[in-house]
């Protein structure tokens, strides 16, 4: 069957795209994690100059389409003199976006820790930051691991939007193969399968880590 063999013939080409997708997603999640942790804590701050910008950030980034955000970073920032190539631009946009979603996850995670934990740590003389670092965040991360896994999976799928600025990730490479072979359906199906294998692996990995942390 030509429709199937066309997928196999182009598998190396498509898998390169899958690798790009994974790299793109991993970098973005890393940025999102750092940003999200800071902003998630900021959302809970009683200090207005920290709380208000954090809230605005989260609401804005969650309230606008990722496609628009990617376009702004790639096409819009040059007007301000910031030229990013497609790949870094995609990482920045996806990272900023996932930062907003992760911030909400982190906020919920922190709120899930009993207040007594915070008070016990403070009563021992630990500062707010030490308390966050050694007591609250480690426990919160354990609780939010499944939600973070979901965010990773969502971002893996959403990263296909980076094709609009020419990042040759999996989706874009699929389109190239389609225009050469005209095997629209089988290539789309092959791409879907590769995406599924990636997200399935991630969710298994997250579950594995979760189990190991539950033992500790």
């Amino acid at each position: 069957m030509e429709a199937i063999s066309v997928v196999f013939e182009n598998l190396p080409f498509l898998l390169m795209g899958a690798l790009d997708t994974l790299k793109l997603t991993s970098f973005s999640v890393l940025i999102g994690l750092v940003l999200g942790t800071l902003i998630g804590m900021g959302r809970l701050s009683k200090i207005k100059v920290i709380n208000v910008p954090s809230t605005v950030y989260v609401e804005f980034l969650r309230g606008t389409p990722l496609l628009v955000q990617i376009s702004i970073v790639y096409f819009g920032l040059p007007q301000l003199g910031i030229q990013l190539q497609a790949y870094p631009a995609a990482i920045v946009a996806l990272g900023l976006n996932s930062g907003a979603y992760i911030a909400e996850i982190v906020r919920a995670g922190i709120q899930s820790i009993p207040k007594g934990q915070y008070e016990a740590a403070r009563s021992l003389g630990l500062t707010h930051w030490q308390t966050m670092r050694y007591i609250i965040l480690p426990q919160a991360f354990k609780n939010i691991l499944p939600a973070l896994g979901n965010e990773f999976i969502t971002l893996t799928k959403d990263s296909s939007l980076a094709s609009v600025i020419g990042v040759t990730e999996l989706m874009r490479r699929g389109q190239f193969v389609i225009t050469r072979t005209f095997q629209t359906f089988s290539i789309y199906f092959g791409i879907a399968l590769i995406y599924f294998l990636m997200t399935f692996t991630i969710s298994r990995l997250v579950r594995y880590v979760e189990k190991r942390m539950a033992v500790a």
Partner: protein
Amino acid sequence: MKKWVAVFLALVIVGVIFSGTLAEIKERGKLIVGTEPTFPPFEYVNENNEIVGFDIDIAQKIADELGVELEILNLPFDSLIPALISDKIDLIVAGMTITEERAKVIDFSIPYFNANQAIVVRDGEPFMPQTLGDLKGKKVAVQLGTTGDLVVSDISGVTITRFQKFTDAFLELQNKRVDAVVLDEAVANAYVKTFPKFIVAAVIDTGEKYGIGVKKGNEELLEFVNTVISNMFKSPYDLLVEKWFEETK
């Protein structure tokens, strides 16, 4: 961790490229051309993962004349003009039809190809349109932002479905959700050759032509591109006549 940060910063810094004038392109040593390589035979990715096609050869010719290397940046079709405006690329060579609307935001070279449109239908079915007017009351799929999109949009009473990829438009035709696909003749011929279940019902001379996109105000580059194109139209004999019998600058 630190290493990754460094790699990332390096990527960002490498990303800072200033596109523009002829002098800058020469200094940089490469011409950056934007195209959407899902438009065979004008531009597509071949078996060896290279972007090739009619337009790519034209772009190569311009780069050769400039004495610089050619770099192809692949972008979706509707991202090409924003990319040109935001200095991501020097030129658009992408089978782009010269239109009034586009000419408001970018400059076009002299035309280099006639953009005849083909009406493609399912073979063996009674519907066989001969003119654009025959599409009245029908459902038509086109590729977003292409000449096909423009000409069909001008006919009243047509239900248009627009796709990012022309291959998706054909999928729609195959699934019988539309009655016809309107797209560039050369592209249609290549596709119908592979899939004989479709047939080109008619070719319409729209009088529209492809041009190379240049950022507004970049007169020097525009002029250079025009010279290269008009020289390509000339035979070697014409060029010799020009060289020996006419006053050159």
